[in-house]
């Protein structure tokens, strides 16, 4: 059964087709969920909630555009909803609002030597970022959203989005540097 047949069967609430679709896309969507979460447990919940949304609203998929892209948007939305709930509880966005000018000194090198770092380690580094940084980093890098749109989506101002993105880059760069340095020492 190819993808389009699976989608048609899923629209008819065929349980076997739903399972096949889940098994086909769950690993990719779990990656999306993990990138937006601090831990695997939350990512599992997002994966679950995301697929509920997928199977509930699959009839609205008109077949235009990539199905994987459609799925991905649903999971990003589920992740963002989770982020908003956390934001309401913790109000972490306010804590990290810095002006860009303050950040210029911190961020000196634009290179990210991630070629020799495993995918799992890069994923872990992204997960370890503070929630606000991580969310904005993901939206900017992987969803390719401009800061204006990110700001609108998260209910913050554009400057805050930019500043948090720069902070995220700085933190990642430091983590990569530390890791590479350690690997270098171990190699010697």
């Amino acid at each position, binding site marked *: 059964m190819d993808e389009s047949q699976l989608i048609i069967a899923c629209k008819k*609430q065929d*349980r076997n087709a*739903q*399972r096949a679709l*889940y*098994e086909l896309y*769950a*690993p*990719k969507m*779990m*990656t999306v*969920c*993990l*990138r937006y979460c601090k831990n695997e*447990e939350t*990512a*599992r*919940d997002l*994966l*679950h909630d995301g*697929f*509920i949304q997928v*199977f*509930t609203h699959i009839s609205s998929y008109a077949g235009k555009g990539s199905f994987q892209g459609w799925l991905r948007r649903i999971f990003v939305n589920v992740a963002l909803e989770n982020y908003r709930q956390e934001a309401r509880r913790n109000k972490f966005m306010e804590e990290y609002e810095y002006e860009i000018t303050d950040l210029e000194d911190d961020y000196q090198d*634009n290179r*990210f030597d*991630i*070629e020799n770092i495993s*995918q799992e380690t*890069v*994923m872990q580094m992204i997960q370890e970022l503070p929630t606000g940084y991580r969310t904005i980093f993901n939206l*900017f*890098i*992987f969803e*390719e959203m401009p800061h204006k749109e990110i700001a609108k989506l998260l209910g913050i101002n554009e400057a805050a989005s930019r500043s948090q993105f720069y902070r995220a*880059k700085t933190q990642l760069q430091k983590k990569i540097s530390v890791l590479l340095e350690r690997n270098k020492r171990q190699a010697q």
Partner: protein
Amino acid sequence: MNEDNNIRQQFQSKLNNFEARVPEDGWVRLEESLIAASKLKRLRSRWYIGSAAAVLALLIGSLLFFPTSIEDPSPIITQQKTIPQTEEHKKSEKQKAEHKVPAQYAHKNKKKAVSGIRQNTEKENDLIFASGESPAKLNPVEKSSSEIERTSEKDQSSPQKQEKEISQAEKDRLIEEFAQAGKKDMLLAALETGAKTKNRNTGIGITGGGGMLSSERTVNAPMTLRSASANPKDKEHYSSPPKQLDLTSNPADNIAEMEHAQPVSLGITVSKVVFDNLSVETGLVYTYLYSKTKNTNINSDTKETLHIHYLGIPVNVNYYFLSIHKLDIYASLGGMIEKDIHGEFRRNRNSEVKELNSSSSKQETISVKQDNPQLSINAGFGLSYPIYKNLNLYGKIGGAYYFETNNPYKTIYSEQKIMLDLNLGLRVEF
């Protein structure tokens, strides 16, 4: 910007083909949730269909009967004076044979007046005739007045009061006038409706009702009937607070069900006509609520039940907007304040830790009290039908919105803010 694009490319290419490990029980969990969601969807569909059918039935009913009720203007009476009923007078009146329609006794509610006409049409067919058709066969005045008396005796609880308003002599004279004008039926309707309006002055009734839908929820996260705002005093009764429901295993393995039964209520009501067809209704209503939860995971099984009894004071405004034969249709708008008078919370927890080869069972029963009164507003449509003299059977279908109260125990009021309910009752009007 180019720097950002470079970073974007670096990370995208690095993680492009990365596929994370999927939880082993992912599909099983998902399937359970999908089954629960489809059940809920079916339940919601039934609710929507039921509501739509009820609204449609009321609309169709109104549309079918409403136009017929306004096709003819209400009777207009131009004179109001008591004239002794003598044969001479009758003759002179006949000669005058005014074709104007009297105005003072025009009923304010046109719809009711005409519905009265419909009600009396069959009854009056043998009495109402054109003045020129067969005056010798029957004295229309005598026959009509006797008929009015019979009608009055049948429908009025206190005919003497009615007599104070319109004397019998005047009534007879008016009937004759209207008969000659060919509009006697209108007068009878007006008199009939007047009697009916008087009947609706005050009413005492008993009512029983319930919500039309229970609330059910199944999730993986543990659930408890105690809310976050629970009174700290109540915590004394717990050896283990609800937070511990899920500590024995991964929350993802937990299956939690929460069910709130339909509320059942019983009450007495008093209503009073305050203006035209507008009446205010209040009373005392008892409501029983029942809720339960079940949390199951690998190591434990916890059940909670909650019984709460409420007493409430409703205040409703009823507007009678349509009468079809004897059936009255009204719209209702109001609110209610309720306070719990008794509540009981039970918790039964069975746990088993296989690794330690130990098991335990614990039961707790405590008396509970909600902190804040429950406020709600409601709206609906009702039907009222006289089943014996002044005894009316009535039914009302409507919806109610329950305001957030931050009470320590969850009930259907807190979980399902909007509820569809049905009330049935008996009302004596006098």
